[in-house]
């Protein structure tokens, strides 16, 4: 297909040189790179996470001495993308990434894919070889638009500098509105240098081509509130969409819960939207969710899914998932509705808008008496599914990792820390034992499950929230995936804390090998680990090692008392497993709990599930 030779009708063309309006004169002389930096400033961008290279040198030259934008030099482009994600998730503003062509762009792809899966607003500027060299296998050429096509919400190759401004304006609008996501803008080097004689600006008003539906039709809301009001066993199942929709959505969720009395569970991504100290909080649901959350989902008669997407980690075996409930699904992305789980009522709209409409439609209704339902839930709660063994079977003197997270929570929660994680058992323990009372305090890679996310995300969050206590709860294997970013934190004097639950294993892999492969620990031992304390010191950080439970509180206090960045290498039991667990493909009622025997093997059907 051909590029349209003419701009589409919604775009306004300004022949700047024909109309020498004083505001436009300067614009007239701007190069593509200058237009880019101006656009970033106009969009309110504070930080650009990036790494230079040949194909972005004109942009880097523009950034030189520009006080309006702060460039954060990472140590690897993956770090730039995750840092932008962390910034976005902690602040609600879009993260901005700038990388060079070829390897710069491909290094950023994991972070882009991560942001796509978790719906994180992000704009990624990639340099490209000059237009004349595209397609010739030029030095550091990669088909960035092709590579990122299916892990971006949208992407562009800008071949005409006149279009740069309109593309960037649209890119930010697409990244931040509707279901947020990453947008890549690939800019050839000659387009960065050229000074366009005309300028196309996109009208920021909603154009025909992208208009997310925010509010839902009134009759759907009446139907929804009637279903909820008639429910004897209602449950709210909330997800990252509530966080993405902004603080107002969190407030309205709490208000709706208050008037309906429904118990609340959440996905990994939605933690913090509903306070963990609330009596109607059930804890996280799904594969490592609580017994009460999963059983309440299984027995509910009306389920309201708000900004979640029925991920396989949440549903387990699909035909046994919440079999008796009528389901209402609120989502801004219509393709999430009926994707894997058919629902009685799909409501397309923004969480906060729809929650507001729902509260209004509820009016003076009274919920059913939920006493019996709450009593059943209390019965499940009494099972105390998070009560882990006091001691490790193999090493009774070792610190239990769950206990380490509990103590970290106890000693820091008053400061409302921002917690990031890597991926593995430590991530799940953090989700289970670290209670969240507020949104935007929990940053984790949910959809893609990217090891190496946590430290750069903490860096981005710390920049966005300079006064916050930011802690990456890490595993000793994951932290090594982006360990180079220690240098970034040192350079910008960011006081981030890394708390490693060091079990000397890729614990989550080991756990699955116990469950499925008769404990054949194929390549899951973390051999040849660095001395994390010395590593910290080598980068100008403080290193603390905790080996005994008696040192746990003092170690955490010492970390908190240190002004600069700290790595805590907390040695924990090597054999602890993360429970409860629903083996993949099993039903919510088939949970493994602490105390159950779970070593063994599985049939091929079960092995094939991830």
């Amino acid at each position: 297909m051909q590029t349209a030779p003419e701009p589409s009708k919604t775009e306004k063309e300004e022949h700047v040189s024909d109309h020498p309006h004083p505001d436009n004169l300067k614009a007239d002389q701007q190069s593509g790179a200058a237009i880019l930096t101006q656009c970033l400033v106009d969009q309110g961008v504070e930080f650009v996470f990036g790494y230079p290279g040949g194909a972005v040198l004109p942009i880097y030259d523009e950034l030189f001495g520009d006080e309006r934008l702060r460039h954060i030099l990472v140590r690897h482009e993956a770090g730039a993308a995750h840092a932008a994600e962390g910034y976005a998730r902690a602040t609600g503003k879009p993260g901005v990434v700038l990388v060079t062509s070829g390897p710069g762009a491909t290094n950023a792809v994991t972070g882009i894919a991560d942001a796509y899966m978790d719906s994180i607003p992000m704009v990624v500027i990639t340099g490209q070889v000059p237009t004349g060299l595209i397609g010739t296998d030029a030095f550091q050429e990669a088909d960035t638009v092709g590579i990122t096509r299916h892990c971006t919400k949208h992407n562009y190759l800008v071949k005409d500098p006149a279009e740069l401004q309109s593309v960037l304006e649209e890119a930010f609008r697409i990244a931040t509105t509707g279901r947020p996501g990453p947008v890549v803008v690939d800019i050839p080097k000659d387009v960065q240098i050229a000074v366009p004689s005309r300028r196309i600006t996109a009208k920021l008003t909603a154009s025909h081509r992208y208009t997310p539906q925010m509010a839902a039709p009134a009759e759907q809301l009446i139907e929804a509130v009637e279903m909820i009001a008639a429910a004897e066993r209602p449950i709210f199942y909330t997800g990252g969409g509530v966080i993405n929709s902004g603080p107002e959505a969190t407030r309205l969720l709490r208000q709706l819960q208050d008037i309906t009395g429904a118990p609340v569970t959440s996905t990994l991504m939605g933690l913090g939207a509903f306070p963990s100290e609330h009596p109607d909080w059930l804890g996280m649901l799904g594969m490592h969710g609580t017994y009460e959350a999963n059983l309440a989902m299984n027995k509910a008669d009306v389920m309201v899914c708000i900004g979640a997407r029925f991920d396989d980690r949440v549903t387990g075996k699909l035909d046994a998932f919440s079999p008796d409930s009528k389901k209402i699904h609120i989502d801004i992305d219509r393709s999430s509705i009926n994707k894997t789980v058919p629902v009685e009522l799909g409501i397309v709209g923004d969480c906060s808008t729809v929650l507001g409409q729902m509260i209004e439609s509820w009016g003076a209704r009274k919920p059913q008496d939920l006493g019996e339902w709450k009593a059943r839930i209390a019965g499940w709660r009494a099972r105390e599914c998070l009560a882990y063994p006091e001691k490790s079977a193999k090493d009774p003197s070792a610190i239990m990792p769950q206990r380490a997270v509990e103590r970290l929570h106890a000693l820091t929660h008053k400061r409302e820390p921002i917690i990031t994680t890597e991926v593995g058992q430590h991530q799940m323990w953090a989700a289970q034992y670290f209670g969240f009372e507020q949104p935007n305090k929990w940053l984790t890679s949910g959809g893609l499950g990217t090891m190496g996310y946590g430290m750069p995300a903490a860096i981005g969050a710390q920049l966005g929230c300079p006064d916050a206590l930011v802690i990456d709860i890490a595993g000793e294997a994951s932290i090594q995936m982006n360990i180079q970013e220690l240098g970034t934190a040192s350079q910008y004097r960011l006081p981030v804390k890394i708390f490693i639950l060091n079990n000397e294993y890729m614990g989550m892999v080991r756990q699955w090998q116990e469950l499925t492969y008769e404990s054949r620990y194929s390549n899951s031992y973390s051999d040849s680990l660095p001395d994390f304390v010395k590593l910290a010191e080598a980068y100008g950080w403080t290193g603390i090692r905790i080996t005994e439970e008696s040192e746990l509180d003092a170690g955490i206090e010492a970390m908190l008392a240190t002004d600069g960045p700290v790595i805590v290498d907390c040695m924990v039991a090597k054999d602890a497993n993360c429970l409860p667990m629903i083996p993949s493909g099993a039903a919510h009622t088939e949970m493994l709990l602490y105390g159950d025997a779970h070593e063994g093997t599985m049939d091929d059907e079960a092995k094939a599930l991830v």
Partner: protein
Amino acid sequence: MKIAHDNAERHVLTVTVDNEPGILAKITGLFTARGYNIDSLTVADISDDHAISRITIVTNGPPQVIDQIEAQLERLVPVHGVVDLTTAGSHVERELALIKVTGTGEARVEALRVADIFRASVVDTTTESFVFELTGAPDKIDSFIALMRELGLVEVGRSGIVGMLRGAEGS
């Protein structure tokens, strides 16, 4: 280990899109990435300024998959709209085919006679060959090709289906 298969239905979708670079790759890539089927796909720009294209996709899958295909297509920024002609109402489907047949004597005469019955027109001829042009519903073209196979069929080119709703309303 068994791999599951579902009951498939055939659906014809029309998709209007911004005519921008990469849009076809985006759409076909969506189908491969999510495991949807494409039986045929046609595309051409349809507006005076060449800014808008219309794509007709023939696909098959169980109803919930067809619904997902529609939703996933609508999610793409350059997509303006998707219409499922199969569920939207009565519609026409047309396809164009060019069919080359060689032969002499009785076979050649017979080919011409069959072409006449099918209202295919001759767009090129030599003393021993014809190129027929035939427009119609896909099964009509199938039957024509089947007959030509016995009469010296050499080559077939088919456009894939273009579809439109019947009646006065635009979709």
